[in-house]
């Protein structure tokens, strides 16, 4: 048992570190000309020369860099203001219920929903049309605006709930109530008091998540394809074009581009680190001068309104997806379709079966493996009494902080180079790299929170570790385990880039199919795919909520 749990730790570490290491190597070598499978035998900088000769590369690079920083700054500010203003209040728990399900909505679906809202013929314009007397969709480039504002908005929609929930999870570890009272008794505003006394400790706990948001939004592909500028696109979308170009010599350029992408993300992280320092210094300055910012009611309300708008935007987008998927004729500026039909679904369905099966199988096996490994690691921690501490948390976040595109591309080249035919297994393995951190982070807190005396009693009653694990701990943790599984499944369903690169067009999932529709403009089909993409994780979360309730319907203390 101890050996089993110990090997789970080794496998987990290997899964988190090795794909990134080999993937980066597999990207770096071709970038400098070495890729025997494609006839590259000598080292050189030719790939970089042709990369920098590509038109618009500088613009694309700056766009990626700025998108990352602006998205992260906006999402973090919205999170900080709201939590500082409302932590521990009923408003907080109300909005928490609104935001939690948002985490399950795949990025692509949220982005499509936003596009349906803000496009020239989208719902917002339709709503305004009768008032402003608009008869035809205005001729503006939204989404796909050259500044990438629509893309940033789409990212903020998803990253704010993520940071919000990560912060919420860290909140119990700080002394909220006494600090609030203390700050109030000295006449500090709620936001200022929270930021002075609690935020530094809280930020230290969530900063890897913040770095993950920076890395994600500097290198995102699916949201950039749906909402971002087209010509030129972001650096990452250009890379994907080259990576999937039938002319294989483009792979060298793509590799060089991936190196640049790594540098862009790294630069964004370094700049963010400098910003962290500046903000900390400003905060200290303001604190030491005793600035109280007592009148912050307006700012607090503003922050609640912002969070409310973010949440309702995603929900409105999802509803629009649903309506479009069953819409018959729906002309501008009508607010509702003239008639409803399930034709979009019946037409799409036969073509959706294969991708759906791939999605379910990949999600199931990557999640199951992630759960087994996580349980093994946590059981090992239970036995040795040692948590991995800061370093293991960093390793856990590593696949989320190193941009996907920089190492998954290398993995693709290695996969091609190896001549392996086990494409399905490779896909599950690559998904696992991204599912594992989320499953672990989701399950670790409830696992550590379970009263250890239950296990002590069971062991003292003469039961072995394995039996205690299976009869006491796992059944008692069935709800968080199923929730972690739903999280993991949702992460797998949402994976676009790894599926695209490792699947190489021979394995499609609902997500790759949905994103591929972005270039066309068939709202009905997009509605079908994006809705299905949302429904899959949603069903998983519903099962995670419903099954324990059914299983333990006669056990009051097992309800939450």
């Amino acid at each position: 048992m101890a050996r089993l749990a110990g090997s789970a730790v080794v496998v987990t570490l290997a899964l988190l570190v090795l794909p990134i290491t080999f993937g980066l190597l597999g990207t770096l070598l071709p970038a400098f000309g070495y890729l025997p499978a494609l006839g590259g035998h000598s080292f050189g900088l030719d790939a970089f020369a042709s990369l920098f000769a590509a038109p618009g590369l500088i613009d694309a690079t700056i766009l990626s860099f700025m998108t990352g920083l602006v998205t992260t700054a906006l999402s973090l500010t919205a999170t900080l203001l709201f939590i500082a203003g409302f932590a521990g209040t009923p408003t907080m728990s109300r909005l928490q219920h609104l935001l939690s399900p948002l985490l399950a909505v795949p990025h692509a679906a949220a982005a499509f929903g936003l596009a349906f809202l803000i496009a020239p013929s989208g719902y917002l314009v339709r709503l305004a049309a009768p008032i402003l007397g608009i008869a035809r969709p205005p001729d503006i480039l939204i989404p796909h605006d050259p500044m990438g504002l629509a893309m940033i908005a789409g990212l903020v929609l998803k990253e704010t709930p993520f940071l919000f929930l990560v912060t919420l999870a860290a909140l119990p570890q700080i002394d909220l109530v006494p600090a609030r009272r203390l700050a109030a008794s000295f006449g500090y505003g709620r936001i200022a008091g929270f930021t002075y006394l609690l935020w530094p400790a809280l930020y230290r706990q969530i900063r890897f998540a913040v770095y993950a948001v920076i890395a994600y939004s500097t290198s995102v592909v699916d949201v950039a394809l749906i909402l971002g500028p087209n010509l030129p696109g972001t650096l990452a979308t250009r890379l994907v074009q080259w990576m999937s170009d039938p002319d294989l010599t483009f792979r060298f350029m793509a590799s060089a581009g991936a190196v640049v992408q790594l540098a862009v993300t790294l630069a964004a992280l370094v700049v963010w680190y400098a910003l962290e320092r500046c903000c900390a210094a400003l905060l200290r300055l303001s604190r030491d001068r005793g600035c109280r910012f007592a009148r912050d009611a307006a700012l607090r309300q503003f922050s609640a309104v912002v969070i409310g708008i973010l949440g309702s935007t995603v929900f409105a987008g999802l509803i629009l997806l649903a309506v479009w998927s069953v819409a018959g004729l729906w002309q501008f500026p009508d607010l509702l379709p003239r008639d409803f039909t399930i034709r979009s679904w019946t037409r799409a369905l036969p073509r959706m079966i294969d991708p759906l099966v791939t999605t379910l199988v990949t999600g199931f096996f990557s999640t199951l493996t992630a759960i087994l490994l996580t349980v093994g690691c946590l059981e090992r921690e239970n036995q040795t009494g040692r948590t991995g501490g800061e370093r293991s948390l960093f390793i856990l976040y590593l696949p989320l902080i190193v941009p996907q595109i920089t190492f998954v591309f290398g993995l693709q080249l290695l996969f091609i180079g190896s001549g392996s035919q086990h494409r399905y297994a490779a896909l599950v393995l690559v998904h696992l790299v991204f599912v594992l951190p989320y499953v672990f982070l989701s399950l670790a807190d409830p696992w550590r929170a379970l009263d250890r005396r239950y296990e002590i009693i069971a062991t003292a009653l003469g039961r072995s570790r394995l039996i205690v694990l299976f009869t006491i701990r796992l059944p008692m943790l069935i709800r968080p385990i199923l929730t972690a599984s739903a999280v993991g499944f949702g992460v797998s369903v949402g994976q676009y880039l790894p599926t695209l690169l490792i699947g190489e067009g021979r394995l499609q999932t609902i997500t790759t199919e949905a994103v591929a529709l972005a270039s066309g403009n068939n709202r009905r089909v997009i509605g079908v795919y994006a809705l299905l993409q949302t429904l899959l994780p949603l069903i998983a979360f519903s099962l995670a909520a419903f099954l324990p309730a059914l299983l333990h319907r006669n056990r009051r203390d097992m309800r939450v």
Partner: protein
Amino acid sequence: MRHGDNRSGLSLSNVVIRLGSDTLIDLSAHVSSGDVLTVMGPSGSGKSTLLSFIGGFLDPVFETAGEVTIDGVDLLALPPEARRAGILFQDPLLFPHMSVGANIAFAIPADVKDRRARRHIAACILAEMDLAGFEKRDPATLSGGQKARVALARVLVSRPRLLLLDEPFSKLDTELRAQMRSLVFAKVRDADLPVILVTHDEADAKAAGGVVHRIGPGGQPHA
């Protein structure tokens, strides 16, 4: 108490538990079957570490020395699940996902294989605790006193070699505390087990009636 004590009962010889430079426990004692050794000390004095040490659950940050034998068997050489050291905590800690009957059945030794026999054992012990017919009940629906009795039944039915009581009465209200005290001590005398009781309540020590070992300010330890 010296090495190789072959008397029946529980022998602790030169048991020392340290945390850094603090000596929390330094104790030699013999507890005969049916007797209670009470370890008294204020909360935070580390008295519960003695029970964790004997049971095999002590956090590795503590340094330990000494021998513990039961009826001449070296207890510390056994893995925790083979020591058969029954524990009662201040909370009943009934497994919330199992019925009362399943909680009891979980504790019945594996050598009783026949299902009817196992069910019979559970029914008997519940009846003994004035809980006849409670098998199907959800532990969450029981009163505090009933939960405490199920916990006691659960530990007794596991046929322990010794009992470790970790302030088992401290969370009960006054009236219930007196009842549970007399019930627990009567049952362990019937079962003829050596018992170590850890408490900060003088009344517990008086009811237990055995040797009292004091630690922390006003008592031991001394090197």
